[in-house]
């Protein structure tokens, strides 16, 4: 199964801003924010999101399985774009708590220089019970470096 190169896999947990895009069976696009992500040893990628905020996106994923995922690092603007066609929804359990906390803490540290406080970030996005989280899992079938600049959109070679 294709896998992300290690530094791009690490990027997912480095305090990035996560965005998920999907499309319904009739082609209507959907978009929502994600909260945490990781690359699994088998190459698949897991993204956690607020199920309330992501209700329409989850509905689109159920219909089509298509997913676009962007991880952009505040400040450096380093941006990874992944796509998949086999996205599935899974139940988030306590086992995901360490991942959730790692991503949350790294994100809070990254946005602090821009005036966003821990309290605000927690209140708006992260102060959630596990029961309100949903998980999406997919196999990246394409990856791009979407960092703004001349090289934006350059394909990333996935490892075999």
């Amino acid at each position, binding site marked *: 199964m294709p896998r992300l190169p290690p530094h791009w896999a690490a990027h997912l947990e480095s305090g990035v801003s996560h965005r998920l895009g999907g*499309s319904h069976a009739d082609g209507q696009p959907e978009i929502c924010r994600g909260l945490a992500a990781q690359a699994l040893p088998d190459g698949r990628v897991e993204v956690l999101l607020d199920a309330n905020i992501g209700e329409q996106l989850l509905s689109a994923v159920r219909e089509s399985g298509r997913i676009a995922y962007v991880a952009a690092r505040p400040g450096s603007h380093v941006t990874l774009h992944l796509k998949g*066609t086999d996205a599935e929804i899974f139940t988030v359990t306590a086992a995901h708590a360490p991942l959730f906390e790692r991503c949350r803490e790294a994100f809070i540290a990254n946005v602090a220089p821009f005036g966003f406080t821990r309290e605000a970030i927690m209140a708006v996005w992260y*102060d959630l019970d596990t029961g309100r989280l949903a998980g999406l899992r997919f196999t990246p079938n394409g990856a791009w470096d979407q960092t703004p600049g001349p090289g934006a959109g350059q394909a990333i070679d996935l490892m075999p």
Partner: protein
Amino acid sequence: MNENLSPPPERRALKLRDVRRLLEGIIPPAMCTVSADGTPHVNYLSHAEYIDDDHVALTYQFLNRSRANVLATGRVALSVEDPITGVSVVLQLRYERTDTAGPVFERLRAKLSGIAAQTGMEKVFHLRGADVYRVESLRKLDPVHPLPAMQPRCDLAAGVRRLSEQLGEAPDLRSLLQAFTEGLQRDLRVSHAIVWLLDEQRQGLYTLASIGYEQAGSGAELPLAEAGLAGVALRENVPIRIGHMSQMCAYGMSWRIKAEQLGLQAAMADTIPLPGLRAPRSQLAVPLRARGRTVGALLVESEHDQFFSYDDEDALTAVGAQLAQGLAALRTAELVEEPATAAPAAPQAGGNALRVRHYPRDHSVFVNDQYLIKGVAGAIVAKLVRDQIDSGREAFSTRELRLAGGDLRLPEVQDNLGVRLLLLERRLAERDFGLRIERAGRGQYRLVASGPLSLVTEA
């Protein structure tokens, strides 16, 4: 049963106007486009632009996947977020057209260039077109715990009304400017502002008035190309606003650094230190328009993030237009003289001597080796000092200056004399050399010196 009873009022649906401040990229908006085969694609935007309740414009900067998808299917989901309350909104959009000229394009381009300069992305951001979309639906998404909405700092509509009334009562340029600067503070709760006027000949801006700075900087000049948000607003004729300037650098800061450097040696240099906050967190620049021309720009600043809103753009555009109209009308009025009164000789002043040096090449003027002003205002003050030394007369009229305009080779004297005199009056008051201009009636003034005057004209 009465069948004429009105139906119960429907709950008002969320309108784009209600959420327009979310479009501005404090948190960069994200869009999802979709290709003909249904593949989604996510992209970040610098900002989105409110056009009306049914339309937004998005920047078209690159020939990329998003662009191809938009042209193929026309469908976009746009996510915008409010950093203050945590609310987010997802808009379903349908592509209608791409503008490559016209007001929507200019507004988007101006804002983009402002954001690009503030974030050091000038080489990355280039606007090819303004993609105009119809808003098909809006979906509001509440955060986990809503943050308290900020209370508006004042009732802007009522403030505009009060300020507008004051402007309408102003009989001359001085009181117009006073009403404007006082009203900004009292009625619109703006603590830091600069009124820049355009010097078309020199392609620069000069400060007519400011509020809230240690150095008022009346007469301070800045090339248009270096004038930051005010320059872009003026050039593009569009209000420009930035509300989260922690990433800022480039030109905004260069003013302050320049001002700081000049502050150390301004006494001898032929430059007036620029007014302005050292580290602004919010800025809004509004072009000042009158009679189909842009005559200057109003810049307001704050040390707080997100201090100004779309509503401030509306409010300041309205009162700024009234100020500009007033400046245009009253500067002509200043040229109409009241019947000349007897011009008494200047009394012998008993204060310290005032040694005036004048450099005709740029009309810079120094008083007791301290820089005063240059350009048109410098030429005027040099002439007035010379006349007073020659004739002993304090009084002068705008008519005399208009007639002297040709001799001084200053075409602007005809055009903008009232404003230049007001500027000179303010600058003299700020410097407090013992030399001041007093208005004695419409078109009638006095140059009052606290001590004996001498004038040296340098080569």
